[in-house]
């Protein structure tokens, strides 16, 4: 790989201990299980997978909001652990799904956007005002909207506020966790267009999490598919959508209902065994739902295949020539 990756994770793992009943002994939930990858600067890595597969946990680990159980996160070549909070904030910023929950309801928009600047502690008042105005304009909010409270804005406008706040320190990297999932499609399109434009103009790197595969296909240059805490396939976006290799990726893509009449609803063949991160199956963790599983799948974990196409973890995937 040429140059320094914007994000690199090595052997990243995060466990939680959860109690499922008052007297039940705590169980280990492995939310992210030994994940390694690198995101080149200026690219967009999309992360997809079903609810509970560990996408948000991965995002929080990369943002330094959650310490890993094992492994390392490097942002712009520097170890995240041990990095000063203010330095980290200048490098990497989040945009979350629910702008309402992530914006302080008692503060005006311009004060919300100013927060990261003020937290730096060394930026003059006039500079703060100028940079806030710049950020608001960048995301398409008016001066007038800057003096409002979050409750006085629509969902799409609130997401613009969250994006302005993420950009005000001019970070290199933005971690977007389901940034459009709470929005109507017409507003989702506005926000996706804005994120794409910002990335181009500012040379940003995104980690873009979504359960909507069509959204990811539209914005990501590379896609990682997560299943029960592991990345089971990774490839360039075009390749992954055109020729998925892992049976789980195939099932996910088959489930996408594009607005094309007459095609009906496909049979994805996954059965009704739902994945449970507190009970990860032995062998290949996907085997209870896999439509093409063979005998060894229930006993032996598939190796991690890294080749010219990308990465895949399945006994049946062969190395690309």
């Amino acid at each position: 790989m040429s140059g320094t990756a914007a994000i690199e994770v090595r052997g990243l793992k995060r466990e939680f201990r959860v109690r499922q009943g008052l007297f039940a002994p705590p169980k280990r939930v492995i939310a992210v299980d030994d994940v390694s990858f690198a995101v080149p600067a200026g690219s967009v890595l999309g992360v997809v997978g079903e609810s509970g597969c560990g996408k948000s946990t991965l995002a929080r680990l990369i943002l330094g909001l959650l310490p890993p159980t094992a492994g390392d996160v490097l942002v712009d070549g520097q170890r995240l652990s041990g990095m000063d909070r203010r330095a980290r904030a200048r490098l990497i910023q989040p945009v979350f799904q629910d702008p309402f929950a992530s914006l302080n309801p008692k503060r005006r928009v311009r004060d919300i956007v100013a927060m990261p600047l003020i937290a730096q502690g060394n930026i003059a008042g006039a500079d703060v005002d100028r940079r806030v105005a710049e950020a608001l304009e960048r995301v398409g909010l008016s001066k007038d909207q800057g003096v409002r409270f979050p409750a006085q804005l629509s969902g799409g406008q609130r997401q613009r506020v969250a994006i302005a706040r993420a950009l005000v320190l001019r970070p290199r990297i933005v971690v977007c966790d389901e940034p459009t999932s709470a929005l109507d499609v017409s507003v989702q399109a506005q926000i996706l267009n804005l994120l794409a434009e910002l990335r181009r103009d500012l040379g940003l790197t995104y980690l873009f999490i979504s359960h909507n595969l069509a959204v990811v296909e539209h914005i990501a240059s590379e896609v990682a598919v997560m299943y029960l805490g592991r990345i089971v396939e990774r490839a360039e976006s075009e390749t992954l959508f055109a020729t998925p290799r892992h049976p789980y990726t195939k099932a996910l893509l088959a489930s996408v209902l594009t607005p094309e009449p007459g095609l009906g609803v496909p049979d994805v063949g996954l059965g009704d065994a739902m994945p449970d991160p507190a009970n990860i199956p032995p062998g290949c963790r996907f085997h209870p739902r896999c439509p093409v599983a063979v005998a060894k799948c229930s006993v032996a974990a598939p190796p991690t295949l890294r080749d010219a196409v990308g990465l895949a973890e399945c006994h049946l995937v062969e190395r690309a020539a």
Partner: protein
Amino acid sequence: MSALLEIEGLRVTIGSTAAVRGASLTVNKGETHCLVGESGCGKSITALSVMGLLPKGSRRETTALRFAGQEIGRFGERDMSRLRGDRMAMIFQEPMTSLNPAYTVGSQMTEVLRRHRGTPRAQAVDRAAELLARVGITAPGLRLGQFPHQLSGGLRQRVMIAMALMCDPELLIADEPTTALDVTVQAQILRLLAGLQKDLGLGILLITHDLGIVARVADRVSVMYAGEVVESAPTAALFTAPDHPYTRGLLSCVPVPGKVKRDEPLGSIPGVVPRIQPGFAGCGFRDRCAMATPACAGTIPRRDAGGGHEVLCVLEPRWGGAAAA
């Protein structure tokens, strides 16, 4: 094809919101009619109007509201509750709104049948187990004894569907039944509904904001915006020849793998869905519509584009109708 549910000129006002403003639609026997639109445009309120379950403080008016040929618009609560869960059933986005956390799946499912039909317990249990199997639940006996919180989201939604089918309804209203689910589970549930409809001849009114779902399951589509049905058409016609500026805008916003290149912008509609006050006149889309003219503030004609395709807009239909004749 005979009409099962006919809604004509439905108006619902809730406090200072005109939630539904003269909506009409028909669900035929054995047909899936999709009602599609963004949040707040009046889809759920339309459904709740039919079921007689509107929130307190709502005012409902209709020109006609017929179920299987019978006018039910003036039915009182007693007559409506006799219909609900029996001849017409509804399932919701969040199954926990209709499943009681304090009772087992089995006792809730059998209760419906015992209340409406007086079916003996043992027979009701058999029926419940049979339906759970029918909706693709393995080990139905085990599930009958479980509480709702012990089930995954997908299983709960299947239980809801099975429960709705206990009394062999003729009409099923499903309000965003898969919105909270993963795409994989969504595909399974939608296949299940399609299969049930074919086998049982159900009429389904399926409410969704997802045009992908509409394309794949609907026989007929009504697009709702700001409390009105702005376009209604057979599914193929709506997707191949969308006519209303809102429908066209909505279709251009949806990312479709392989359709719009990365780094090329998606189509989008400026602004947001408005909240309409009672007394509002004219087209509810005119603030956002690139084609708007002063005439759009007046009375908007419902135009016939031919082949059962209707459009609520001052513009002449661009397709079908006169041109095709």
